[in-house]
């Protein structure tokens, strides 16, 4: 079964993360790199992507007369932003939850776990049998 694990960063967390000393940022990056290597060698990784900062984001809606209406981020009303995601192919939901919990321990200030929320969503598939 495939699951998408969405890493949700608190709105203020981005700025704070950028002010961490280099060794903390390096530790965070190595954690993420090792995670993807481990997921590949476990035969579980389908896709993993990190997203550009919310300050680079655009919010797009269709104008009534056609064409895009574009506004810039960040969006003060949002409490959390999607920072990145993984799609994994695992035997069951329990494994997806265990992976999400591990991702949430990514190191932040002083190497202590950040414990940000990770949303676990099952990816829809084809029908299992005849109706």
């Amino acid at each position, binding site marked *: *079964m*495939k699951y998408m694990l969405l890493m949700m960063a608190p709105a203020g967390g981005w700025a704070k993360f950028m002010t961490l000393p280099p060794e903390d940022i390096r530790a965070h990056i190595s954690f993420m790199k090792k995670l993807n290597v481990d997921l*590949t*060698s*476990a*035969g*579980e*990784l*389908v*896709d993993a992507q990190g997203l550009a900062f919310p300050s680079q984001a655009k919010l797009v809606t269709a104008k009534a007369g056609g064409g895009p209406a574009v506004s810039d981020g960040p969006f003060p009303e949002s409490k959390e932003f999607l920072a990145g995601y993984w799609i994994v*192919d695992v*035997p069951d939901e329990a494994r997806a939850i265990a992976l999400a919990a591990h991702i949430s321990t990514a190191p932040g200030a002083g190497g202590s776990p950040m414990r940000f929320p990770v949303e676990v969503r*099952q*990816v*829809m*598939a*084809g*029908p*299992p*049998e*005849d*109706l």
Partner: protein
Amino acid sequence: MKDGTALEDLLRDAAPQVLAALLRRFRDFDAAEDAVQEALLAAATQWRAAGVPDSPRAWLIQVASRRLTDHIRTETARRRRQGVIASEAPPAEQPPPGDLPPGDRDDTLALLFMCCHPALSPASATALTLRAVGGLTTAEIAAAFMVPEATMAQRISRAKQSIKTSGVPFRLPTNREWPTRLAAVMHVLYLIFNEGYASTSGEALVRTDLSSDAIRLTRALHHSVPDAAEIMGLLALMLLTDARRPARVNEHGDLVPLAEQDRAAWNARLIQEGVALVTSALPRGAVGPYQLQAAIAAVHDEAATAEATDWPQIRALYTVLERMTDNPMVALNRAIADAMVAGPAEGLTRLDALASDARLRGHHRLHAVRAHLLEMQGHRAQARTEYLAAASRTTSIPEQRYLMMKAAKLADSEAKE
């Protein structure tokens, strides 16, 4: 001179037999597979130019064995140089086990049992079986399961590693082991079939046809063990299910339920073969779940119209199957058969009894079946609520679209009344 496709088919069919022949003499799965790949590559280039030898398989086995022996010699020399060999037994050729009747057919069968060993997870066993016995490339398997090739390569390599570390022997199971090991093999083949069947949902992706691969492998298993009634049942079930594939999705890519399918589009040849298989399997005694499911599929497939379906017989078959399997989905299907025989009220009573089963609580199928039965009774508003409950719980996109359409049609017809 063979054309390219015929040569590819020949090589793909020979690959598992060559691998099995090597494994009978050498333990190392990884090295044996590498040697087979090298022999296949050599064959692909040399045969194209010089023609196919009289005995292609013997040619391949000879070339692959030579490559493997060279590899072992190099490895041994390397290890000796590094001083690690002293305590290890040389990974030399092993005498064929005396209790094994030799022959290619038994070798390929032993390979299948090895790849479907219960020590492996279902995901590992399906991947390894398709690679080693099915002759698919890692890229093809990765595409079929929609994962990157690197991920699938790791999954297969871990599966080989588990076989090595858990000491799974390369031989046919003993008489005592036979029933559980055969069940494990059939389960893996069934999973491969279902993976292919579930993927016919029209999300336009080029996917290897896993259903056909599963049928090909099950057919080969049936030829190796022609007396096993459950293998006949499994093959029949696959054929009778696959026969309906052309009618299962409409021109818009939407799912069409069994009752509304265009039966003229069903594959009559597959139905004929499936019915013949299950008819010859059932009287052999020891009726198992695959034979019963095949028998149910046969009753559906033989009905000229949905209305002509012999529901009393389907109900009887589900009653036997229910006693055998303790699968809540079987109980759910039995409730549908009850409704078709004795009316929706009878089916709904049975559903209420099933609702206490923890495995079914909140399951989308429970809501979907209740919705159908309520609709049969003319309780449109309640049926609509149940369709929506089912739609919000399913993890299948085509099924969700179907359930939402059912709910929408009920709302529409209510508005018009």
